[in-house]
């Protein structure tokens, strides 16, 4: 026990004396959350659009007024001819051009059906899509209000449960938390073990009467503490800066965070049994852990739209399950029953990895 305490104390000293790494460790989560939270947004506001009005009648004027008044759009130009559309897109001034046909108002009143044309700059397909659907919705509501009818005859109302304003922060905070915890836990543990191998102290630790599980636990615990502190930081930022809701139980949330961090730490140890230098450890962690965690976890790209083989692979990625769990707890406020399966998968992966790590931990050098 005394040896164990000494070991853990030593690890903490390594962590706290390496100021640069420490700053990165705590700075990175904050910067990443803020970056993702503010910069990368899928909702739109004040998007620059242009209008080409062939009709110039009462209805088109009214609709234009409505569009200009909305917070989503900012009408920056009135075009006079079709030729100008190409030009304005090429200059990159606007993302969307709305074209009213010649007989817009007349057709609308008489046939209750009048086409408007939406032309978008699809070099940025995400924005183009979103803008176009916002504009369609605006048009729809105008028709409904003005003509007191439902045209087309079907009226679809969408209600976005658990995220009524379609805020991307709700997606990014759990995502960033997952990535950061993975990074801190797996990368840092694999690096510290590889470092001991590199400077040769591992040779002495192996020759000493220290038991392998003492070395493993001694390496895990300091980073477990560190990861939990970082998780708290991200949570606080999410809750107070970005108004993330927290509808579930904190105990459950931290229980799941603990489980996920443990899983990532064991992964890091597993990597360090293969890597003999810090650089190798870093590269393996980056390539084998970070990329799949970002790309295949459903953080950025929805899993359901991936090809089947990738969907199958994504099941082996702890980050996927953890993101589901966090969103369930925070946004939906579900209890344990709803996430029992996901938790089970995480427990299974962790146990499996621990077994492999213990099996692979060498009592000798090769």
């Amino acid at each position, binding site marked *: 026990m005394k040896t164990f305490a*000494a070991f853990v104390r*030593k690890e903490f000293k*390594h962590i706290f004396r390496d100021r640069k790494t420490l700053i990165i460790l705590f700075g990175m989560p904050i910067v990443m959350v803020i970056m993702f939270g503010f910069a990368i947004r899928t909702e739109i506001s004040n998007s620059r659009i242009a209008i080409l009005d062939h009709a110039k009648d009462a209805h088109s004027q009214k609709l234009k007024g409505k569009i200009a008044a909305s917070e989503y759009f900012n009408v920056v130009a009135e075009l006079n001819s079709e030729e100008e559309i190409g030009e304005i897109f090429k200059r990159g001034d606007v993302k969307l051009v709305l074209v009213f046909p010649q007989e817009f108002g007349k057709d609308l009143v008489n046939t209750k059906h009048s086409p408007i044309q939406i032309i978008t700059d699809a070099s940025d397909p995400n924005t183009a899509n979103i803008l176009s659907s916002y504009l369609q919705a605006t048009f729809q509501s105008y028709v409904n209000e003005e003509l007191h009818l439902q045209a087309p005859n079907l009226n679809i109302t969408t209600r976005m449960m658990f995220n009524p304003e379609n805020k991307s922060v709700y997606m990014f905070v759990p995502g960033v938390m997952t990535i950061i915890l993975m990074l801190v836990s797996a990368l840092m543990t694999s690096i510290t073990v590889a470092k001991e191998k590199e*400077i*040769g102290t591992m*040779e002495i630790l192996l*020759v*000493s009467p220290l038991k392998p599980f003492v070395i493993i636990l001694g390496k895990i615990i300091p980073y477990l503490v560190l990861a939990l502190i970082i998780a708290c930081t991200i949570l606080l930022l999410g809750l107070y800066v970005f108004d993330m809701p927290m509808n579930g139980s904190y105990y459950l949330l931290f229980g799941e965070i603990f489980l996920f961090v443990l899983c990532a730490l064991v992964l890091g140890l597993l990597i360090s049994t293969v890597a003999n230098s810090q650089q190798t450890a870093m590269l393996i962690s980056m390539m084998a852990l970070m990329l799949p965690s970002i790309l295949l976890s459903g953080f950025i790209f929805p899993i359901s739209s991936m090809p089947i083989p990738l969907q199958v692979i994504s099941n082996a990625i702890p980050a996927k399950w953890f993101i589901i769990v966090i969103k369930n707890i925070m946004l939906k406020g579900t209890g344990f029953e709803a996430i029992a399966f996901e938790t089970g998968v995480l427990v299974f992966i962790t146990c499996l990895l621990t077994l492999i790590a213990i099996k692979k931990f060498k*009592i*000798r050098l090769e």
Partner: protein
Amino acid sequence: MIEVHNISKSYGSVQALKELSFKVEEGQLYGLIGPDGAGKTTLFRILTTLLLADSGEATMDGLDVKKNYKKIRKMVGYMPERFSLYMDLTVEENLNFFATVFQTTVEENYHLIHDIYQMLEPFKKRKAGDLSGGMKQKLALSCALIHKPRILLLDEPTTGVDPVSRKEFWEMLKKLQQSGLTTLVSTPFLDEAELCDEVALVQNGQILKVDSPHNIAMAYPHRLWQVKSGANYKTLKILKEFDHKISAFAFGNVVHLATNSEVSEEMIEVHLKQNGVEHIQIKPIQAGIEDVFMDLMQ
């Protein structure tokens, strides 16, 4: 105390150790002398149970290095080739850590490291990474000694250390030996070999010769001359063309020339003068261990 019997070890197609055997008696200061890549580090790792040999047996104090590795790990003090210290921990912290890891305390075994640690005492709050090579070496030795090992294994402890520290270090080893510690030390420096009780000359994973440094030097089979002149390089070149030479090597600012017993001082002098070398001093000398090693390596 240490018995090595027909140990072989290969890394892929490279054979690091070839059926190597030797024996270290209790209380001996035993030297493994050989150039880089001779297989010394591999042998140390096998003896410290960090590597498994492909074939052959080795015992430490009667304990098999493969089967009884746990017991061996408790009684061995090991100082790897690189001074394996935590560079971001202070001198004191390093020592305390290794003491705790080996389930003892610095106070308990302070008498063992007293002489060495005294020199480190003024720097005990300094980080190990900021110490000089000689200081790091002393700290590493203190760390290896702190758990009162019965066998001390030192892998090239003097590489990268200044001459004064090297000398001090060997004085410490001699002192430690008086307390009954068995020490196996490897070094590429032949002058250090003469300080050991017994040495094994190792090359390419094989032992060339085992004996006391004195006997090894005495067994030198040729007549040896020390030739000194103002132009060492030229002298060496000319002596290499000398008909009766067996070997000629530069030793600092002199040349050691080995010949058969029929060659006299005059014959060498004549040969040199004919080739335009002046200010020649020639004297017969007793071979050192270095001469033997050079001879064996040919």
